[in-house]
Structures are given as structure tokens and as C-alpha cells.
């Protein structure tokens, strides 16, 4: 295990990216910070810039307008990083796959930018906060 990967496992700082979601996964992500779940006790912290982030929490099926911005944002993120697809939309685009404006799913988009990207999935519509915590823990265990 390289030093950077080992460092990635400790206190992951996350950046939250909304790529045309329905806002529900996003409020559940914010729920993680508040007193009932409080993930900051594990050192997980939401940061304001992708340059500070170890992980990207991505929600939503990717649409055309937001795609170039996401590519730029992914390039700015410090590598190595983990991309978490939060919610069913990011995984498979569910009911939005027939829409004229979406280009997703997330893994296809990310693999086009960086073939070696680490991608983890948390399914659910929306996933419960407990599920998100479990997803993060499982992803870090496999690193």
C-alpha cells in the first residue's frame, strides 16, 4: 500500500457535488453532519473546495449542462480520491435514463475522465444516512 492510499483512509474529507439530483440525497448528506448522526466524530468533514477533498460525494444523474463543470471539478480534486455515487440516480439513472438531457450514469462519465478512478456506490432513493456511513466504511476497508 502506498503512503498516499494509507493516508486516504484516515479522516476522509469530502466534497459534495450535485449533478442534477432531486435534492433528496443532498439533504440526507447534510443530515450526516447534524446531531443525530454527527459524522465529524469520525473525522469525516465536508469541505468547501475540491482541492481539499479526499472523496467526492456525487448525487444525481449527470445532465448535459453540468457535465463540463464536473469534468473541471474532478480534475481539480487532489488524487488519489474516491468518488462516491450516492443514490440510485448516480448508479443507474433509474427513471431519468430516457431523458433527452442526461448523459450519465456517473461511472461512465468518471471513467472517461480517469480510467483508474476509484468509484463506490451507495444505492437507495434516497439512501438512509446509516447506509451512507456504512458505504464509506466499506469503501475505505477495501482500499
Amino acid at each position, binding site marked *: 500500500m502506498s503512503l498516499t492510499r494509507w493516508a486516504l483512509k484516515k479522516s476522509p474529507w469530502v*466534497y*459534495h*457535488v*450535485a*449533478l*442534477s*439530483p*432531486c*435534492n*433528496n*440525497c*443532498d*439533504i*440526507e*448528506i*447534510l*443530515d450526516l*453532519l*447534524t*446531531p*443525530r448522526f454527527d459524522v465529524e466524530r469520525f473525522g469525516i*468533514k*465536508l*469541505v*468547501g*473546495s*475540491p482541492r481539499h477533498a479526499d472523496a467526492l460525494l456525487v448525487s444525481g*444523474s449527470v*445532465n448535459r*449542462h*453540468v457535465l463540463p*463543470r464536473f469534468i473541471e*471539478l474532478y480534475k481539480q480534486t487532489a488524487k488519489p480520491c474516491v468518488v462516491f455515487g450516492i443514490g440510485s440516480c448516480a448508479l443507474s439513472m433509474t*427513471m*431519468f435514463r*430516457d*431523458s*433527452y*438531457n*442526461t448523459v450519465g450514469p456517473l461511472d461512465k462519465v468518471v471513467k472517461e475522465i480517469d480510467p483508474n478512478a476509484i468509484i463506490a456506490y451507495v444505492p437507495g*432513493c*434516497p439512501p*438512509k444516512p446509516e447506509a451512507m456511513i456504512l458505504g464509506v466504511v466499506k469503501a475505505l476497508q477495501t482500499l
Partner: protein
Amino acid sequence: MKKTIVPLGPFHPLLEEAEYFKLIVEGEKVVDIDMRVGYMHRGIEELSTQKTWDQSTFVVERICGICSTSHPMAYVLAVEDLCGCEVPDRAKYIRSIICELERIHSHLLWVGLAGHFIGYDTVFMWGWKYREPVLDICEKLTGNRNHYAMMKPGGVRRDLNNDDFAWVHKEMDKVIKSTEMLVGAVLDDPVLHARTKGIGVLSKKDAIGYGTLGPTVRASGIPDDIRTDDPYNAYDRVDWKVITWEGGDVFAKAAVRLLEIIESAKIVKQCMDDMPDGPIDANIKNMPPGEGIGHAEAPRGEVFHYVRGDGGNSAVRHKVRAPSFMNIPSFKATCVGHTISDVALITAAVDPCYCCTERMAVVERATDKLVMSGRELEECSRKATENLKKEYGSPTKVEKTVQKILSDF
């Protein structure tokens, strides 16, 4: 003076959703604002025409996660208007309960975020902490924390268990109690008065001209509420009143939302008491060709749906109008003339489905020399609050209104 353009977004730590603002500033003062949306466009209107009438309720539910009952609500009202069917009484009461629970959790969410925007993180934590029991009630009644999937053209998808109501009553009492505490803490704080009063004033004329909706327009003193203007569900059978506030500033919007939580709790409790027995579904057999309009009051304002059918299995046109579509253009009237730091607060006051992802409290420890002890800092803050109290006067008018509403309850 030289004009400068300050871009805000699309991925900005302040806004949860991607949206782009172009602030044209002179010095620190905003002289014009321009917006670009479309980062969230998923083509739902077109998607809905590919699905059957029944499936479309799930599609419109995914328009917004926070208003995830209001959109299906307006949609099923439109479909029922199209085919002219009458909904059973029990379904009406169940619908009211779910809609009001959603309003409570949405307003608590907003109060928390608004507190966070002005750097008052205690309110953020309080608001979201007291929101959790409401989500627990939703989970118990409907099976999910956010997307409830309760609405169905002609009725509701699943029945509520009457045995749960005693527990819900108890939980609602707790919610009311904590909201009262929040109302006291937020509306009687001179610091918050100083920060939010006179900021982002939306005049009555602008509110009507831009066609703003919901708490935004009610804070400008116009009692515009679809629940009384075009009664649906069981809202005309229970006792509640429309909250309005004069002023149109950020403070008025906060006050309206906070007091609406208590009104909503009132509606939920009455609906549970009056809940009739009977069927929950009108079982629509066929869809005639024609058109229907449905509108419902979401936490942020009126949601408007228009459907047109040709007698087939799905709609040929489905138009959706969310409240933020009308509220966001009013930033042109409210933001101009204020400083950049106020813009975040003013845009948040409309509650345009933004959230904050960044903890803004920055702790700088350049030197480890102790400049002031904790006790000294506390003393300083007390003094500042006293001074503000002297300057702005004690908030007696607010206190009186709040007490009246609480005593009515």
C-alpha cells in the same frame, strides 16, 4: 465607479445545488444581478408523457426531494380535475397529514440553514435536530424518510394505522414544544434583528408583479395561500389560519416560516382526531380526453400542474411549475442595493432549494498566545448584545404576536 462582475457558482460552497449568479458590483454594492439556471434540467415534463398516468406520480415525486409530496399532490389534483372524480374523505385527511408533515420538516430545515448562513450554527444544529423526530413520524406512517409515494390519482396508495396516532400525537407535542423554543430563540434575539431587519425588502408591488408565492409573498403582507384560495384536501374542515407578516425583509420571511410550523402541527393533530373511516381510493376506471389543472401549496409556495390527455394511457402534455421558478426572478428586486455578504442571506430567505455544504466557521490559530480567556469573550459578547438591545429596542411587538399565537393554540 468601475463596475466589477463577481461570479457565484455553479459549484459554490454556499449553494447545495448548482446554479450560477452573476453579481455586477460597484465597490461592495450590488447594482445588478443575472442568473443562469438549467444545471438541474432533467426533462421531466417530457419524461412524464412517456409514462402511464399512475407511473407519473413517481416521476413528479423526484422533481424535488424536499417538496416530494406537494408535486404528486398537485399532479393527482390535476388528474382528478381532468376526469372529474371525487376523492373519499379518509384519503383527503391522510393527504393533509402527509402534506403538513412535509411542511414542518421543510421549514425546520430552512430555519437551520438560514441560521447557518448568518453564522449562527447553534440554530443550524437545533433546527436539524428537531427535524429528525418529524422524519421518524414520516418513516413510521409511510415507510420512508423522504419520498413517501402516498399519492395516487383517486386517493392514497396505502392506509394509515389508527393505532399509531397516539404516538404521533405525543411526538407532535414534542415538536411544538421545541419549535416554541426555537421561535423564542430566533425572534427575540437582538443580534438576529440587527442582521436580518431591513435586508432584502420585497415590496408589495414587486411581490405581485413578479408573481411570488408562499412564505415569500406572505412576508410582504399578502395573505396568498392556495390552501384557502382554492381549498383542497381537508383544509377547509379544520381550524387554522394563514400567517402573514409586514415588512417583506428576511426577518419577516423567517417569522412566517417559524409560525407556520405551529399552524401545520395544529392541522396534523386535528386531522388525526377527525379521521373518518371508509375507503381510501376512488378507483378511477377510465381517463376521458381533456385537460386538468391542479395546484397545491408546497412549503415554498404554489405548485402548479397542467395535464392534457387524449383518452389514452398517458398524458400528451404535462406542465410543471415549481414555486422557486417564480421566486428566484424576484432577486432582481431584492438584491440590488445591498452588499455582497447580504446576497447569500437574501437568496436563502426565499428558500430556493439551496443548502450549504460547507461549515463556514474558520478557526485561525496563528499564534498560540491566549489573547482572551473564554470568560472574557463571554463578557464581551454579553456587552455587545446589551448595546444592540439599547440600539434596536427590545423586540416587544414580536413577543406580543408570538405570545398571542402560542396562547391561541
